[in-house]
């Protein structure tokens, strides 16, 4: 659309040619505006101290058999449970077809650097997937966890078995640094 801006003397700025200089200036301006917007948007993201607190190392030797360590990670509790042999057996022997959220116990574990799984330790985010309450350990109909808020029952692998929660308790990202220590996050 060709337009001219005039006053009575017909002094015009002929925009019909869409001068290269205007396009170049406009493009450079747009690039500048985008570059300027980047820090303004980025600054709301997690700051370095939040990110630093976002990963923790846990020494597994501190947790005895049949005991659970509860650690705050990114504002949420992480359960590190040293499972008994019976708990491990129950977790493995479950018919997962009957579970509302089918998942084998192996799928809920992380291998060490050699590729070996360590079923003795279950690491999961201790937050009920229904509305976010913290379930109680060694409770419920499946000898795992029970959430008192709305009655969800979890088994010894942290899988939902009965109750309103839709999915199993979340396994956080973690890795084995050595055979006896893990880094969560």
């Amino acid at each position, binding site marked *: 659309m060709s337009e001219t801006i005039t006053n009575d003397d017909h002094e015009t700025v002929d925009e019909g040619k869409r001068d290269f200089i*205007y396009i170049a*200036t406009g493009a450079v301006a747009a690039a500048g505006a985008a570059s300027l917007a980047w820090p303004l948007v980025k600054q709301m993201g997690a700051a370095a101290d939040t990110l630093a607190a976002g990963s923790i190392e846990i020494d597994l030797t501190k947790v005895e058999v049949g005991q659970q360590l509860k650690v705050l990670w990114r504002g949420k509790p992480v359960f590190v449970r040293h499972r008994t042999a019976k708990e491990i057996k129950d977790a493995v022997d479950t018919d997962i077809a009957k579970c509302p959220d089918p998942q084998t116990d192996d799928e809920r574990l992380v291998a060490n650097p050699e590729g070996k799984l360590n079923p003795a330790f279950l690491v999961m985010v201790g937050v009920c997937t229904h509305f976010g309450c913290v379930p109680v350990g060694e409770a419920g109909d499946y000898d795992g966890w029970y959430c008192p808020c709305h009655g969800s029952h979890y088994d010894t692998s942290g899988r939902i078995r009965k109750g309103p929660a839709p999915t199993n308790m979340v396994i956080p990202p973690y890795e084995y640094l050595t055979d006896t220590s893990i880094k969560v996050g």
Partner: protein
Amino acid sequence: MMVSIKKVALSALALTGLVVAGTATIAYAAGSYESSYEMKHKHWHFSGIRGTYDRAAAQRGYQVYREVCASCHALEHLSFRHLGDKGAPFFMEEFKNPNDNPYVKAFAADWQIPDIDPETGDDIERPGIPADGFPDIFSNPAAARASNGGSYPPDLSVIVSARNGGADYLYNLLVAYDEPVPKGMEMSAGQHYNPMMEGGKIAMAAPLQEGLIEYAPQEINDHGETKTIQVEATVEQMAADVTEFLAWSSDPKMEARKSLGMATMLYLLIFTLLLWLSYKRVWKDVEH
């Protein structure tokens, strides 16, 4: 006579500027006593628009801080993980997350951090982790004063920004202890003469002595490769190194700032030029 207002304003500005500059050359004086001390102006690696921190010097400076200054001075705004950030003395490309940097972990573990035993609730001390901040040296300011003859050892994390003269001031403070006390100045017990202090009297005894520490025999580059070095711990060397480290501590983002600055200035030069050409184009056929 039609004198352009621009020209006149500019010459007025220049004139005032000259007067100010002339008066500003009045020498840096230490109180009202005659001091013959001439400040040494070092060329710092980080000065200028493209300056960066001398990584090796800052690494040695951390060692000086740890072994000498940390007996009294805290670094309250620094956490151990900062030592592994981009632009920091111990940054390693391989460990973008400084929590994983092995040197950061080692340095953190070298400090005892007050904490609470989660089982008994007692006050304990435990080795540091990267996410911890550098700990306080004294439990509170009163304790700090009591241990230092009534004077409070200032925190060093922003000391280079907090003093007029910055790095030059700090370096000269550390090396000027040998200056003779001027005639007529009386020093009380617990006071030492230093021409850099306003008034000439400082409560801190000379912190650096020849051979006080033995520098670690290697410097680490940002790929984790070590290079064997042999640096002698003279007073001037330690002063320069700890100043480099504390300069980084005061302004850890300086390198990022200067590099973005270069890109921004170039962009703005080009953009302003384009705007000016657009201006010329818009006004080409207009009487003005």
